[in-house]
Structure formats: structure tokens, C-alpha cells
């Protein structure tokens, strides 16, 4: 692995590191808000990935001059990935706000937003159901 390989793919390395950090937070943290934060980091890493692949070396902003006299020597960056990711950013905002709204409702109903405490409440509910309706297999999983 040469240094050229590492430096030449810098944007990909950053993308992967950021993605794994986000993923780890989602999996390892029990607090529901922290999970949403992790999910955001995870999504942002993908935004960064898309934005970086649109960049053309030496390219300028992909805006044609008003008089449409386009100089063939000017290199433009690729605007398509940027446009795509605008959509994904909007989706990300919607997901975050919906997730937070759900957390508010969960807090109202369960009185906590810690996963282990909620699991405890749910397993109690499950045990109550099992004693009333007969044992069943599998809980939340």
C-alpha cells in the first residue's frame, strides 16, 4: 500500500471512518437520542461521499455564464451528485425529526428513553402476557 494510494483516496477513507463511527454509535449506545445522533453521522458520511465524488480536479462551480458563451477550456465539476444529495439531505432531516418525535412519544408512554430500561418494561409486559395467554417464543427480536 503506497502513500499515494492512501492520500489519493483520502475522501473515501474519511467517508469510511465517519460511517463506521456513526454505525458504532447506533449499535453501541442505549440512549435513543444518541442513536439518532449516530444515525445522522452515518448519513452525513454518505452525503460527504457523494459530494466528494462530484469534484473534478481543477473544476469550477458548474454554472454557465449568463450570455451562454461557454469556454470549452473551462473544466466544470459534476453537479449531479450534489443535486442527488440535496434530496438525501432532505430525507435525512425528515428521518431525524420523525425519530425525535417518536422519542417524545416514547418518553410520554414509558417515562424513559434508555434502551435497557425500556427493554425491562417490555419484558415485564411480555411476562404478563405469557402468564395470561400461555407461553410464546421470542420477544422483541
Amino acid at each position: 500500500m503506497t502513500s499515494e494510494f492512501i492520500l489519493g483516496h483520502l475522501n473515501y477513507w474519511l467517508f469510511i471512518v465517519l460511517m463506521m463511527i456513526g454505525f458504532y454509535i447506533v449499535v453501541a449506545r442505549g440512549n435513543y437520542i444518541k442513536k439518532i445522533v449516530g444515525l445522522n453521522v452515518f448519513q452525513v458520511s454518505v452525503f460527504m461521499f457523494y459530494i466528494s465524488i462530484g469534484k473534478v480536479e481543477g473544476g469550477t462551480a458548474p454554472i454557465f455564464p449568463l450570455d451562454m458563451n461557454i469556454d470549452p477550456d473551462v473544466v466544470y465539476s459534476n453537479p449531479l451528485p450534489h443535486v442527488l444529495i440535496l434530496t438525501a439531505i432532505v430525507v435525512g432531516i425528515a428521518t431525524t425529526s420523525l425519530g425525535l418525535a417518536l422519542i417524545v412519544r416514547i418518553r410520554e408512554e414509558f417515562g424513559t428513553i434508555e434502551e435497557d430500561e425500556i427493554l425491562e418494561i417490555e419484558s415485564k409486559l411480555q411476562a404478563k402476557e405469557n402468564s395470561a395467554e400461555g407461553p410464546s417464543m421470542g420477544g422483541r427480536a
Partner: protein
Amino acid sequence: MAGSTILPTLGIIDQLPLLTIAVPLVAGPLCVLFGNKHIAWVLAFVASLISFLFSAHMLLQVLDGDVLSYHLGGWAPPLGIEYRVDAANAFVLFLISGISTVILPYARKSVEHEIKKVSHTLFYCCYLLCFTGLLGVVVTGDAFNVFVFLEISSLSTYVLIAMGAERDRRALTSAYDYLILGTIGATFFVIGIGFLYIATGTLNMADLAVRLAGMEGNRTVQAGFAFIVVGMGLKAAIYPLHLWLPSAYTYASSVVTVFLAATATKAAIYVLLRFMFSVFQPEFVFETHILTFIIMPLAILAMFAASLIAAFQTDLKRLLAYSSVAQVGYMILGIGLATKISLSATIIHLFNHGITKAVLFMVVGAFVMQKGSSFAKNLNGLGKQMPWTCAAFVIGGLSLIGVPGTAGFISKWLLIDAALEEDLWWLALLIVMSSLLAVVYVWKIVEVLYMKQPEEGSVIGEVSISMLIPMWILTIACIYFGLNTELTLTSANVAADGLLGGGAQ
């Protein structure tokens, strides 16, 4: 491009691919603007019916192998977004819009019973958005557009599931779990699309297929494939990725469960089919390996493990949810075999299982309405008190097992046929054996309904006629598509042909 024709003057018929999704998309916000739950229901039903008629019309148009291509905003593909309808997606559109149209009359009573009054309008709005999203995922020929519609349907699905909190607060946590897993799945899908875009510079599926030919050794393309399969696998609930499904189906309100069980996983399976067989070529070595050594074993595992777990459930809703995971196994098995017959089997099972599961969950919804519970213990002897509902359950159950004369038989027969054609007799045997597990859990419920004595002094009547009629329309469809297979078999065969051969043209 061959098969796509641009007519100089676009009449309403040529706009059908767009109108099918535009009508429910506009109707959704209109529900909120009117702010009246009766108007909202009428809007939802009319929009759904219009979509259904359009889908049926498109299905008839493409049954001879034609492809309808609609260029959004008049921008020609591959630069512009293209809606591309062939037999495969017309058939899935037909299923989704048909199921939605049939269950909306049922929904009216059930929603009144299970969801609090102030949310009714919003319920129908979310329902329409979810419906739009699912149709959009299926109709579009643009890879990134799939993601956008996928998120429209997913976000509204989370809301719909969370509305079940009225009956059980665990609906909220299962909606939250699904939100986390669903978002990870969708993001994986976008990463996969990004890799394909890096490798090919295009997002149009037909164009992708052309440019991907001969790129099978490309590591970027392989990684993209893996991301897409895992991301969509989460949405389709392929066995080890199914964890969100049982709780979500159990705690969502009955109508939502009926709708999701019959359509949501089916749309995801369709996307998998589309990517595996017409965007990527099935001849790619890495893909063949994934299909044989990962997808097929997982499918067999799903068929047995999920059926076994289902047999040990006391809650009818959770039982049927695990059964759904098992049935997704059969569809995935057809994908894994990757022959023409097996793909037909997948597509036809997608349809048959859609209507079968809709019937079964509708019956459970009726039990919840009359008995207030979906636990087997509370359903003792209901066969006498709710004869029509329970009879629908028996027929749906038979179709789930795959008894001759019902829709479920046709798809299992085709799947066994596909296994035997490849000389995999052990696989055919496994399919039959796993069906026996379905006998176990269906019989368990039938026994409760018919053999046990009802509780003393309980007076339970039949549900209202507006719920029985939709239930029985689908029950009769279960039998009809088991006896008359012309529509389903032709569609599935043409669709499989189109997926295997026509994608690149």
C-alpha cells in the same frame, strides 16, 4: 432505445405511468387540507381506485412483452428520469393498488375502532403517501428515484406503525426500531447506488445494465452490488435482516398490518429482482456465488426457522408475521435458483402471498374488533359465532399451506418445478417439508376456532358487512387464482422473460 416509443402528442393514456403515482400523491395532502375524516376516506378510496384502474390498464398493455417508457418532464433518458413499465412492475403495481383498493372499505370501520378520532385524517394522508411511495419504487426506471420513493413509503410507514400506540404502547418502540433499521437499509442502498454511479456515470437502470456488461471484475461494482442487496434485504425482511418485522406487524393497527404485509415487502422483493437480474447480469460470477452460497441457504433457513417460531406463538398477529418471514424465504429461494421458472415462481408467489396474507390479517383485524384481542386463547369457539370470518381464515390458511385449488398451491408448485428442473430433488423435499410446518401453525388456530368451546355467556356477532365484503373478495381471489392461473402465470412468465432477457435493451 428499443421498446420505448415517444409519441408526438401525449394523450392521457401515455401519461398513465406518472398519473398512477401522482393521483395518490396529490390526494394525500388534500386530505389534510380538507381536514375531515369522511372526505379523507373518500379521497383515499378514489385515488386508490384510480391508481388501480390505471395499473390494470398498463398491465394489459405490457402483457405481450411491450415496455412503456415515460420521460419525466420530457427529458430523454438516460439523462432524464424515466418511468419504465414492463410486465414485472406492472404486475406488482396491479397487486399493490388492487390490495389497497380492496382494503380501504375494510379500513373505515377498523380505523374508527383502533385509532383515536383526531388522527383519522392524518392516518389516511400517511396511508396515501405510503401507497404513493410503494407504487413509485416499483414504477421508476431510475436507480436514485427508487431511494426517494423508498424513503417516502418508509417514513409514512413508521408513522402508521406508531399510530398503533393507541392499543399497545410497544408500537412506538417497534416503530423506532424499524426507523433505525430502515434508515440504515436505505442508506446502504444509496451507498450502493453511489458506487454504481462512480463506476458507470449513469443512474438509469437500463443504461446501467448496458454499461455494467463486462465490468464484473470491477471491485467498485461488486461492492455496490453487496450494499444494494443488504440494503434492500433489510426492507424485504430476508431472514437474518427481519428483526424489525414481527414487532412492527404485531403492534401496528390491523389495517396497517394488512397493507404492509401484502405490499411493502413485495415492493422490496421486486427491487431486488430488478437489480439482480436486469441491472446486474445474472451471469456475473460474483453474483452467481452470492445467489448460490448466501441467498439460497438463507432462504431455506427462513423457511424452516421462521415457520418453527411461528408455530410457537400465542398471538395470532405475531404468528402471521413470522409466517410472512418464512414466505419471503420462498420468494428469495426463487431468486437464488435464478432460472426462468424460479423467477416466475418468485413473482407469482409475491402476488399469491400478497392476497393470502391480506385475507389472514383482515380476519385477525375482525377478531381484534369483536373480541378486543388477537391472542389464540381468547378466540375459543369463534367458528360458530363468526362463521364467515372464520371460513375466510380457513381458506386463507389453506392457501398459505399451498393446498391444491388455492393460489398458494400454484406458486409452490412452480417453485418445486424449478427445483426439480435443476435436479435439486432435496430442495423440492425441503419445500414440501417446510409447508408441513405451515400446516402446524394454521391447524393450531383452526383448532382453537372450531374445536374449542366458546366462553360461557359470550355474545360475539359477525363483523359488519363493509368489513366482510373486502375480506371475501380477497378470499375468493385466493381460490380464483388457484383455479384460473391465466392472468398470474402469463404475467409472471412475461415478467421473468423481461427480467432475464430484456433489461439490457
